[in-house]
């Protein structure tokens, strides 16, 4: 192995690490907005794998897919933040644990 080689696996490992950080962020943070940021982080990590595989396979389809993910993420953020704003109007809080209407 050449000393300077960057195997695909490194990128994938980095993406996995970012994904897991995002996941833990969603699970441990109580602020809805930060949870949302963590979700964006997870989406980005997935995009990173898509782009890395795109180069690995020599086709651009992965990049196109990452592009679509970006579009969907943008739409998601728009609606998600609107929901958070609405929730805040009702509860005067952006704490996820304050919303437990579904409690049985």
């Amino acid at each position, binding site marked *: 192995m050449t000393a300077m080689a960057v195997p695909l696996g490194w990128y994938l490992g980095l993406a996995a690490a970012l994904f897991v950080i995002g996941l833990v962020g*969603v*699970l441990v943070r109580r602020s809805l907005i930060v*949870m949302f940021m963590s979700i964006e982080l997870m989406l980005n990590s997935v995009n990173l794998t898509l782009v890395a595989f795109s180069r690995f396979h020599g086709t651009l389809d992965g990049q196109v897919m990452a592009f679509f993910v970006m579009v969907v993420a943008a739409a998601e953020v728009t609606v998600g933040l609107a929901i958070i704003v609405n929730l805040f109007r009702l509860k005067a809080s952006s704490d*996820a644990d304050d919303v*437990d209407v*579904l*409690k*049985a």
Partner: protein
Amino acid sequence: MTTTIATYTGVYGMPEAGSAIDLAWLIPVVPAVSAAVLLLIGKRLGRYAAHVAILAIGFSAVASTIAFTELLALPEEARSVISPVATWLEVGDFEVAWSILIDPLAAVMLLLVTWVGLLIHVYSIGYMEGDERYSRFFAYLNLFAASMLVLVLGDSFLTLFVGWELVGLSSYLLIGFWFEKRAYATAAKKAFVVNRIGDVGFMIAMFLVFSATGSLAFAEVLPMAPEIASGTAVAIGLLLLVAAAGKSAQIPLFVWLPDAMAGPTPVSALIHAATMVTAGVYLVARVSPIYATVPGVGLTVAWIGVATALLAALIACTQNDIKKILAYSTVSQLGYMFIGVGLGAQVAGVFHLLTHGFFKALLFLAAGSVMHAMADETNPWKMGGLRKVMPITFATSLLGWLAIAGLPPFSGFFSKEEILVAALDPPGAQGIWVIGTIVAGLTAFYMSRWFFLIFLGPKRYEQELPGVHPHESPPSMTLPLVLLAVGSAAGGLLNATPASLLRFWDPETSFLSSFLAPSVVPYYGDTPFIPHVPAVAIVTAVAVAGVAAAWALYLREGVDHVALRERLGGFYQLSYQRFYVDELYEATLERGGRGLANAFTTFDRVVVDGAVNGIGRGVAGLATVGRRVQTGYVRSYALAVAAGTVLLAAIFLGGLLNGQG
């Protein structure tokens, strides 16, 4: 004479393209379409609804006649024709085609159904005048005729069964036509329910036929009849007998027919003469190859027929309702037909079916005409002396009465004698002949009673029904009467030529016998109990005695009927109360059924509902525990999702690794 006549060959031909037989599917379809049209837009047609209906059934009548003549033109052994119309069901190898089977038997039935049906349609113009559901009545009449035509033209058990059920449905609609009266609606329901019992028999018989032969088409099943295992054949025969007993009102399923009087009188005429009740007789004649393989079953059919004939005749002697008397006489006459078809003399049975179609339609329409004149009164004791007032009704009824009483040379004489002569031959059937002879006398008696009380004697209605001024019915009602009277008087000629007048059932010379021969398989040999001619003389003498007895009781002055009834005591009551059959059924079947239903309800409430509720409570209990999982915190849910993701990722990627390794 050594002419040979064609026998059942089991070979079915195809019709010539463009011939009336090829287009015979139009015969049921046209009235059916007309019925649909009348149901949809009949109200707007107003009085013209009747014309549409009559045109439709008239078309069928003419088409049937043309098909009949075409059939006559064919050579005798090629007169069984199947004309495919459409594929109905296709399941794997099993295919049910909707085909039309026209053979001599079907052709004869076609003529009866369409022409008598046409006359009844015409009669209804006058009879139903002013009814608020005028157009719907004609729609139902058309539907009824169409159903019967489907039944008659069915080429398989299944298509016949479709017509069979449709007939049941339309009879229900027509019997309950005046459903505002609770009793009428109940009568319709009774007819329907009793018919269902027979239908179950039909269906099981169909299953057996299919499992035994792998087909339901007559063209395939009937030629195979001798190969069916005799046990199965007996079962099929008995089950079909149940079916026929339901439709043709035989013991023990006859109770619906007298109640079916609830419908308008033309409906009664249609049910009793042309459609419906003849279906059972037709069915037994149609599957005669199966009955031929197990003659014992046929004998059962005959015994049930003669028992029904006797019971119904005894009941008819004391009824005080002109339509009820006719109803029981129909049951009784159907019993005769069952004797005929049961003893393998299908020609005689069908012959009686035809002549009965004429004179019973005539008598019913005449009864309707009388009721029309007497403000719907049905008690003959309140009538009398209508001879002068209603001359046409009187004259036609006279012919009908003579025909049903079995007096020569009217149609009933020939057909009834032919059946009784057939009962002379087979071993074990002599009892049938004896009882049948007694029934012939009873028939003559009660029909004479009916006739005398209505048309002769003093004009009792002047006292009993003040304000009623009887009048002759309009021409639309009397014309069918006249035409049917001609049929009743001369119908005997169908199967009796002068040469054969004293040699009954001489297939070489009589028309119907030779015509029908290719359709049916007669059985039983020729071992006369007593010579035919004296037998006929005896039966005729008994019938004359019946008429004389009626004359002595109901036309002579000074008979104290109240005293007579008391003297007869229990016998009178037994007959008058219809042998308590309805009460017996009520006590056993209805109560039993109700008890059974109650038991089932309890079972349902305790066991089934208990199980359901138990499950419900169990789920509720589980949920009480399980709801603790639902914290309502979105992060707990997210945690669960994440855990699931990890698990799934581990499973899939682990599998991937294994696949690679």
